[in-house]
C-alpha cells in the first residue's frame, strides 16, 4: 500500500510525530483563554473540552433564563408630599438661553424632568415652543457637564474659588483695574440687578465701601453707572448672532435703544428682507405662533438669498443677492413715499419683474396692518425699514415700541471695544456667562490669546466649551432646570423659573456666585423673592398678600396683564429722520455687487441655532427643514451653479458631495456643497453653529466653523458678504440626508390651491380621486375595495393636519422623539436610510413638469418661482391597513378605537409590513441602540444619565422589531383613565398627542372623530380634507387639509 506523508519526520515516525498523531489538530484550539487555569496547570484541553464547556455554558444560560432575577423595590423613606410614584407632575417655568424665550411646562416623573412643553396660558407665546427649547432637557443629563468648579483645569472647591476670586476682585478694584462681565442678552430683571450691584461694589468709586448687597434698589445701581461713565467695571452684552443694528437704528430714529415688539398676527401684508422670523430672528417662537394664527389672511413676501424656513412659507419668495437688500428696501420706500406724498429718494431703481412694485402696493393696500422686517444687521437697512414702517403707519399697530422686546440688549461695538482692550492687555478681570466668544466671534483667536494674559478669568459655563477651556476659574452654573430665575420678556410681563430637580453636580447658579463674591450671604432664592416683593408685587392689585401672589406666580409661571396691551401712541415724526434716511441711502448705494465674486449669507439652522446646542444629539439628528440634511453644515448653492462648476448634485449613500474651498475676505475653509433650489444664483449659504472644537462627545468636530468668516461693519456684525469665492472640487464628503427625492413626481401628495381659487371653490386643488374600471366607468376608491370595515365603539382617534398652518419647523419631530423614547442613530445610519424618527416632515419643491418626462419631474423648478410645501407624515393608522394583512405573526393588528397597533414583543422582524406600507412610516430596529457600542457617543439612552429622559410609560424597543407612531397611546390611556376615575365623559382637547401639544401654529388637531362636538370631527367634513394616497383606499385615520397659498 502506498504511503502518503507530509514530512520527512512523519515518514520516519519520530516520537514527536507519534505524540502529534494522538492530537487531532497540530495546534491546540485557542481554548486556553476560556479555561486559562487549566492551561497553566499543564492540562491540555481538547476540542471536546471546549465543546463541553460551550454546551455547559449554553445550558447554564438557558437555565438561568428560566430563573427570574430578584428585583429590588426601594420605596421612599420619607415621600415628598406632591410625588405619587407613577404619576407625572407638571411644573411651570420659563426658558431663556439668550436666544429663545418661551414660558414652559415641565413634566417630571418621580422627580426627574422628562419633557418640556409650552405654557398655553402665556399671552406672548400661547404655548408655542420650538425644537431647541424642548431638546434643552437633554443638556441637563449631559455627562460631559462640569461637575465641580475648576481652577486652571484642576478640580477645586467652591470655598477655595470663592476666596481667591473675591480676593483678586478686591485687589483689582482697589488699584482701579478693569473688570468686564461678558454675558449673553439677559431677560432676568433680578440678574440684571445683581450685575448692577456687582458693578457698583467693585467700581473704583465704591471700592472699600462697606456696601451690603441688595440694599440699593435697581434704579440707584443704574443711576450709579450712569453717573460715572468712565467706570472700571462694565457689563458687556454679547450675542453670538447679533441684532444690534435694530437697536442702534431705533436709537437714532426714535431715540429708543430697544427692539420693538412685532405683531405678525395683526399684519395682513408682511415683507421680509432676509429675516428668518419663523425660526431664528429675535423672538421667533412668539412670531411663529402669531404667524400661524391667521396665516391664510397674510400675504407674505420674502426677499432672501438662502432658502430659509420663513422663505419656504412665504406666499411670494423672491431670490435676491444680499447686496441688493438695501436697494430693494429703497425701491419699496420710494413707491410708498410717492403714494403717501413723502419726499422720494434719488436712487437707481432695481427691478425684479415687478415684484417690488407688487410688494409695495400690497403694503400700501393694508396700511397700518402691514409689517416690513429686515434680517440684516446693517444699520442703514434698519433705518430704511423703520422709515417704510413709519410711512405705512405701522408703529402702534403692528410694531410696538412702547412695549419693547426685552430679550435682546447686545451691542457689537462694545464687544469690539472689549476685544481691543483685551488684546492690549488692559483688562484685569473677565467674567463670562452663557457666551463662548472664543468660538463664536471672528476674533476668537485674539480673545483666547488675550485671556491667557488676563489676571483673572472666570467662566460660568455649564459644560466645557472653547472659551471655558482657556480660563482660570470655571465656576459652573446650574442647568436652568436646576435653577431659580425670573424673566421679563416685555415690560409688565414676568416669568418665574423654578428648579424641578436638585443640582445633579456640585454646581452653583451664577447669580449666587455673584452674590457670594459681593460678600452677601443671601441665596438667590431669597434674593429673587425679595426682588419680586419689592418690584413686581406692587405692580398688581389683584392679590393683597405677597405669599398668595408668589404662590400663584410659581404655579402659573407667568405674571401678565389681563390682555396684551398694544401701545397706540402715535410716534412723532422726527425732523432728523430724513437726514438719517438720506445718510443711509449713501451707505446703501456704496455697497454694490462685485463682479466675478460669490455672495455669501451666514444663517442659523432651525435645529442647532447659533451652536450653543451643538452637543445635543436630538438636535443634531433633527433634519434641517429645508435641506433635510442632519449632522453637518454645508455650503448651499443653486443647482444651476453647481452644474456649471461641475459639482455632484445627487445625494445618497453612494453619492458623495463635493468639497470646495470657500474663501471669504481672505479666510479659507473647506466645506461640502449641497444643491438647494431657491438659493439665488451667484450666492452661497453657510450655517453658523458648527465646527465646535470643545463641545462634549456629540458636538465636537461636526461641520466647519463659519464664525471666523464674519466681519464687522459700521459697528455691527455682518452676516452677509459680497466677497466670497468658491473653488472647484477639492475632495469628497458624505452628507446624510433623510430625504433624497425632492419633488412629488407629479403625484397628488401635497394638495394645494390659491386663496383666489379657494374662495371660488372650497374644493379647489382637492379633486376627488376616481379609479377607472375596465368598463370605462370611474368610481371612488371606497367603492372598489375588498375590505370589511372594522367595527367601532364610541371612540375613533383621528388626527388632522392643516398643511396651510404647518410651517415645517420640526418641533413635533423632537416632541415625538422625547415622548416615545426614540433612539438617536447617527450620521452613518441616516445615510443608510435607517432613521428612527416616527414623525418626519416631508419637504417638496414644486416641479414645473406635471406629467410625462420623469427626468424632468425629478428636478425642482428653478429659483424664480420656487414653491415649497411641508407635510408631516407619521403612521396614518389606516383602517384598511396594508401592513396588517402581511404580518405573519399578527404583531400588527387593528384596535377597536381605530388605531393600527404594533405589539413589539410579538414582532419577529420580517419587515413585510414596512415593505407593504405605502407611506414608509415604519421603522426597524437594526440594532440595540441603547447598548451597541456604535451608538455609545450619540444615543443618550446609552448612559445612566441620558436614560433619565426616557418616558417610563413607553418601552424601549429591542433589536429586530418594527416600530412606528402609536398616536401617543400612553397619552390616550392617561387621558381616558383620568376621565374614568373622575366619572365624567372625556372632553375634547383633553388628550393631546405629543406632536399636537407643541405645534406652534396649531396645525395638528387630535380627537375622537365619533364625538360630534370634537374639533377633529368638525374638520372632517371640510372641503379641504383629503387623505394621503387615497387612490389606495387605505382609509387612514390621519387626514390632511389642503394648503392654501395667498399668491
Amino acid at each position, binding site marked *: 500500500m502506498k504511503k502518503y506523508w507530509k514530512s520527512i519526520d512523519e515518514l520516519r515516525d519520530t516520537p514527536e510525530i507519534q505524540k502529534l498523531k494522538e492530537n487531532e489538530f497540530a495546534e491546540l484550539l485557542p481554548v486556553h483563554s476560556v479555561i486559562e487555569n487549566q492551561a497553566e496547570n499543564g492540562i491540555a484541553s481538547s476540542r471536546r473540552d471546549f465543546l463541553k464547556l460551550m454546551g455547559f455554558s449554553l445550558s447554564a444560560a438557558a437555565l438561568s*433564563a*428560566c430563573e*427570574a432575577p*430578584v*428585583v*429590588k*423595590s*426601594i*420605596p*421612599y*423613606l*420619607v*415621600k415628598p408630599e406632591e410625588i*405619587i*410614584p*407613577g*404619576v407625572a407632575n407638571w411644573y411651570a417655568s420659563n426658558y431663556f438661553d439668550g436666544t429663545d424665550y418661551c414660558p414652559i411646562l415641565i413634566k417630571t416623573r418621580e422627580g426627574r424632568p422628562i419633557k418640556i412643553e409650552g405654557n398655553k396660558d402665556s399671552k406672548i407665546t400661547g404655548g408655542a415652543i420650538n425644537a431647541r427649547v424642548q431638546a434643552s432637557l437633554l443638556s441637563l443629563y449631559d455627562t460631559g457637564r462640569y461637575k465641580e468648579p475648576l481652577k486652571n483645569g484642576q478640580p477645586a472647591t467652591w470655598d477655595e474659588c470663592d476666596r481667591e476670586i473675591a480676593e483678586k476682585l478686591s485687589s483689582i478694584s482697589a488699584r482701579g483695574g478693569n473688570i468686564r462681565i461678558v454675558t449673553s442678552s439677559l431677560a432676568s430683571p433680578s440678574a440684571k440687578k445683581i450685575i448692577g450691584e456687582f458693578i457698583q461694589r467693585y467700581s473704583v468709586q465704591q471700592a472699600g465701601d462697606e456696601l451690603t448687597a441688595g440694599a440699593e434698589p435697581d434704579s440707584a445701581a443704574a443711576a450709579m453707572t450712569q453717573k460715572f461713565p468712565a467706570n472700571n467695571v462694565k457689563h458687556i452684552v454679547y450675542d453670538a448672532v447679533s441684532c444690534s443694528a435694530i437697536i442702534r437704528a431705533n436709537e437714532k430714529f426714535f431715540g429708543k435703544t430697544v427692539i420693538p415688539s412685532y405683531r405678525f398676527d395683526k399684519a395682513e401684508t408682511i415683507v421680509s428682507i432676509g429675516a428668518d422670523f419663523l425660526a431664528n430672528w429675535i423672538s421667533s417662537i412668539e412670531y411663529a405662533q402669531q404667524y400661524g394664527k391667521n396665516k391664510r389672511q397674510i400675504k407674505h413676501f420674502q426677499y432672501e438669498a438662502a432658502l430659509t424656513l420663513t422663505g419656504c412659507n412665504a406666499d411670494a419668495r423672491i431670490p435676491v443677492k444680499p447686496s441688493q437688500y438695501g436697494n430693494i428696501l429703497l425701491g419699496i420706500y420710494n413707491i410708498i413715499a410717492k403714494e403717501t406724498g413723502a419726499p422720494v429718494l434719488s436712487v437707481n431703481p432695481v427691478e425684479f419683474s415687478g415684484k417690488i412694485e407688487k410688494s409695495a402696493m400690497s403694503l400700501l393696500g393694508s396700511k397700518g396692518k402691514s409689517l416690513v422686517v429686515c434680517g440684516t444687521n446693517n444699520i442703514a437697512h434698519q433705518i430704511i425699514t423703520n422709515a417704510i414702517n413709519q410711512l405705512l403707519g405701522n408703529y402702534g399697530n403692528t410694531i410696538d415700541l412702547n412695549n419693547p422686546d426685552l430679550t435682546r440688549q447686545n451691542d457689537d461695538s462694545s464687544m469690539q471695544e472689549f476685544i481691543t482692550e483685551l488684546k492690549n492687555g488692559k483688562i484685569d478681570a473677565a467674567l463670562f456667562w452663557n457666551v463662548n466668544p472664543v468660538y463664536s466671534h471672528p476674533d476668537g483667536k485674539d480673545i483666547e490669546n488675550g485671556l491667557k494674559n488676563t489676571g483673572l478669568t472666570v467662566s460660568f459655563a455649564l459644560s466645557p466649551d472653547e472659551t471655558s477651556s482657556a480660563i482660570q476659574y470655571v465656576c459652573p452654573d446650574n442647568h436652568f432646570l436646576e435653577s431659580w430665575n425670573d424673566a421679563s420678556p416685555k415690560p409688565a410681563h414676568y416669568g418665574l423659573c423654578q428648579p424641578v430637580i436638585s443640582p445633579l453636580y456640585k454646581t452653583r447658579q451664577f447669580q449666587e456666585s455673584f452674590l457670594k463674591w459681593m460678600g452677601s450671604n443671601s441665596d438667590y432664592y431669597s434674593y429673587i423673592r425679595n426682588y419680586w416683593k419689592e418690584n413686581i408685587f406692587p405692580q398688581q392689585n389683584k392679590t393683597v398678600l405677597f405669599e398668595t401672589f408668589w404662590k400663584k406666580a410659581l404655579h402659573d409661571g407667568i405674571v401678565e396683564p389681563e390682555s396684551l396691551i398694544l401701545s397706540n401712541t402715535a410716534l412723532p415724526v422726527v425732523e432728523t429722520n430724513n437726514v438719517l434716511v438720506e445718510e443711509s441711502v449713501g451707505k446703501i448705494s456704496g455697497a454694490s455687487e462685485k463682479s466675478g465674486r460669490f455672495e455669501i449669507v451666514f444663517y442659523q439652522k432651525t435645529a442647532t441655532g447659533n451652536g450653543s446646542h451643538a452637543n445635543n444629539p436630538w438636535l443634531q439628528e433633527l433634519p434641517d427643514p429645508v435641506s433635510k440634511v442632519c449632522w453637518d453644515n454645508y455650503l448651499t448653492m443653486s443647482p444651476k451653479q453647481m452644474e456649471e462648476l461641475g459639482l455632484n448634485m445627487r445625494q445618497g449613500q453612494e453619492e458623495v458631495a463635493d468639497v470646495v474651498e470657500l474663501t471669504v475676505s481672505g479666510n479659507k475653509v473647506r466645506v461640502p456643497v449641497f444643491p438647494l433650489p431657491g438659493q439665488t444664483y451667484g450666492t452661497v449659504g453657510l450655517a453658523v453653529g458648527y465646527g465646535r472644537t470643545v463641545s462634549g462627545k456629540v458636538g465636537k468636530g461636526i461641520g466647519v466653523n463659519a464664525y471666523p468668516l464674519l466681519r464687522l461693519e459700521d459697528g455691527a456684525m455682518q452676516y452677509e458678504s459680497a466677497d466670497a469665492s468658491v473653488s472647484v472640487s477639492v475632495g469628497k464628503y458624505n452628507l446624510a440626508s433623510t430625504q433624497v427625492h425632492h419633488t412629488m413626481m407629479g403625484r397628488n401628495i401635497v394638495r394645494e390651491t390659491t386663496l383666489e381659487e379657494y374662495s371660488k371653490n372650497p374644493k379647489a386643488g382637492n379633486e376627488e380621486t376616481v379609479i377607472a374600471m375596465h368598463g370605462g366607468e370611474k368610481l371612488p376608491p371606497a367603492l372598489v375595495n375588498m375590505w370589511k370595515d372594522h*367595527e367601532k*365603539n*364610541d*371612540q375613533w382617534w383621528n388626527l388632522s393636519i392643516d398643511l396651510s398652518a404647518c410651517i415645517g419647523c420640526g418641533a413635533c419631530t423632537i416632541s415625538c422623539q422625547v415622548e416615545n423614547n426614540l433612539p438617536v442613530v447617527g450620521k452613518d445610519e441616516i445615510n443608510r436610510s435607517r432613521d428612527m424618527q416616527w414623525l418626519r416632515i416631508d419637504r417638496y419643491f414644486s416641479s414645473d413638469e406635471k406629467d410625462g418626462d420623469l427626468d424632468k419631474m425629478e428636478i425642482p423648478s428653478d429659483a424664480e418661482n420656487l414653491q415649497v410645501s411641508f407635510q408631516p407624515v407619521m403612521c396614518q393608522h389606516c383602517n384598511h391597513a396594508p401592513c396588517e394583512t402581511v404580518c405573519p405573526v399578527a404583531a400588527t*393588528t387593528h*384596535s*377597536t*378605537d381605530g*388605531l393600527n*397597533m*404594533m*405589539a*413589539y*414583543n*410579538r414582532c419577529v422582524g420580517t419587515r413585510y409590513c414596512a415593505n407593504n406600507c405605502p407611506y414608509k412610516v415604519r421603522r426597524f430596529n437594526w440594532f440595540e441602540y441603547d447598548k451597541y457600542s456604535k451608538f455609545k457617543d450619540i444615543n443618550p439612552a446609552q448612559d445612566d444619565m441620558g436614560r433619565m429622559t426616557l418616558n417610563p*410609560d*413607553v*418601552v424601549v424597543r429591542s433589536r429586530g422589531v418594527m416600530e412606528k407612531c*402609536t398616536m401617543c*397611546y*400612553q397619552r390616550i*390611556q392617561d387621558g*381616558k*383613565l383620568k*376621565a*374614568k*376615575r373622575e*366619572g*365624567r*365623559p*372625556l372632553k375634547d382637547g383633553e388628550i393631546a398627542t405629543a406632536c399636537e401639544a407643541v405645534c406652534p401654529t396649531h396645525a395638528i388637531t387630535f380627537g375622537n372623530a365619533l*364625538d360630534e362636538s370634537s374639533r377633529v370631527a368638525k374638520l372632517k367634513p371640510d372641503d379641504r380634507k383629503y387623505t394621503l394616497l387615497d387612490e389606495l383606499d387605505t382609509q387612514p385615520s390621519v387626514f390632511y387639509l389642503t394648503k392654501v397659498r395667498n399668491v
Partner: protein
Amino acid sequence: MRGIIYRIVALVSVTCIILISASYADTSEGEKLFKTTCVACHTIGKGRLVGPDLKDVHTRKPEDWQIKWIRNSTEVINSGDEYGRKLFEEFNKVMMPANNFTDDQIKSILSYIKAEGEKAATAQTTPVPSGETPSGTEIKSDKYQFYLLAGILTVLIILFLILRNVVQTLAVLAARKKGLPVPETLPLGKDIMRWVSGHKRIVALVIIILFAFGSGKAWYWMLEIGVEQGYEPAQPIQYSHKIHAGDNGIQCVYCHFGAEKSKTAGIPPALVCMNCHKYIKTGKQTGTTEIAKIYAALDYNPDKGTYGNNPKPIEWVRVHNLPDLAYFNHSQHVTVGKIACQTCHGPVQTMEVMRQEKTLTMGWCVDCHRKTEVALAENPYYKKLHEVLAQRLNKNTFTVEDMGGTDCVKCHY
C-alpha cells in the same frame, strides 16, 4: 382520597376569601372613613392599639361629646374635660389628630363601630370559619400525590419481580415434572429484550404514547418559564400582612395609597409605618427586632422620639413582577373597575409572607378581561359606549373584551 379532602378544604377557603373580599368591597361611608382614618390607631374589639379599643364606644359617652372629641380632642382636653384628660393621660399623651369631618360623617363612623362591635360579639359565639387553613395547601397535595404514585410504582415493580420469579420457578418445576428439558432462565435484561423483540408493535405504540406525553409535558413546562407563581421571597423585614391586613383590618390602600391614583400601588414609605409604629414598639410575633429595622432605616431613636440624619432605604424584594413590555395600571382596576385587591393578589390578609398567588401571565390577564363584566351604567364616562355597545352587540351586559379590552395596544406600546 385525602387529596380530594384537601382540595375541598382549599375550595372552601378560597370561597370564604372571595366572600370576605366581597364584603370588603361593600363599604358604607362610615366604614370607609374608619378604615382610611381611624384604623391606624384603633381596633373594634381586638384590644388597644395606639388608642383605645372602640368596641361599645357608644356606651361610654353621649354622642354630642363623641362628635366634639373626634373632631378635635385637643379642644375638649383643653376645655378641662375630666374624662378627656384621663384618656389622654392613659394613652401616653398621644393626641388624636384633629379633622374636619361633618357631624353626619362622624355619626356614620360611630354607627359603623357600633355595628362592627355587635358583629364581633356574635362572631365569638360562632366557630371560626375555615378561612384559616394553612397556606400552600395545593402544593402539599401535589407532593402527596407524587409520593403515592412513587409508592404504588415501587410496589408494582416488586410485585412484577416476584411474579416473574414465581412464573420462572413454576415453569422449571412444570418442565421437570413433564420430563422436558429445563428452560434456560435468562437474566432480567435479556428477558426483557426478548419480550421487546417479540412485541414490536406494542413497544412502538408505547414509545409513541410516551413521546407524545413527554412533548406535552415539555410544552407545559416551557409555558411555565418565567411564571413565578408561588414566589415567596424572604424580605428584609419580616412583615406580616396577616397581622396588619388580616388581624388589624387595615385597608390595603392605607399603605399602598398609589393603587387608587397611580399605575403602581407602591410600597409604602417607611414614614407610613411610623404612623403606628411610633407608638407600637413591640410586635406580636417578632418582638422588637423587626420594628427596630424600620427605626434603623429612618434613623429614629424610639426612646427620645427623634430622627437622625443617617437614614438607609429598605430594599424590599419585589414579589409581583410584570415585564416592562406590559403596561398595567392599578388605578384603572382599583378605582375604575372596583376590583378587590385579592382578585389578583390572593388572600393577602392571611399571608405571613407575601406570595405571588396568581400566574400573572398574559393568558391570565386576557382570561379575566374576557369574563369580567363591566358596570358600564355606574360611570358616566361609559354612557355613550354603553349605548353603542347595546345597539351593536344586542345585549345588556358587556365584558372588558367587548369594550376593546383585549386590544394589544391597551397594554403594549
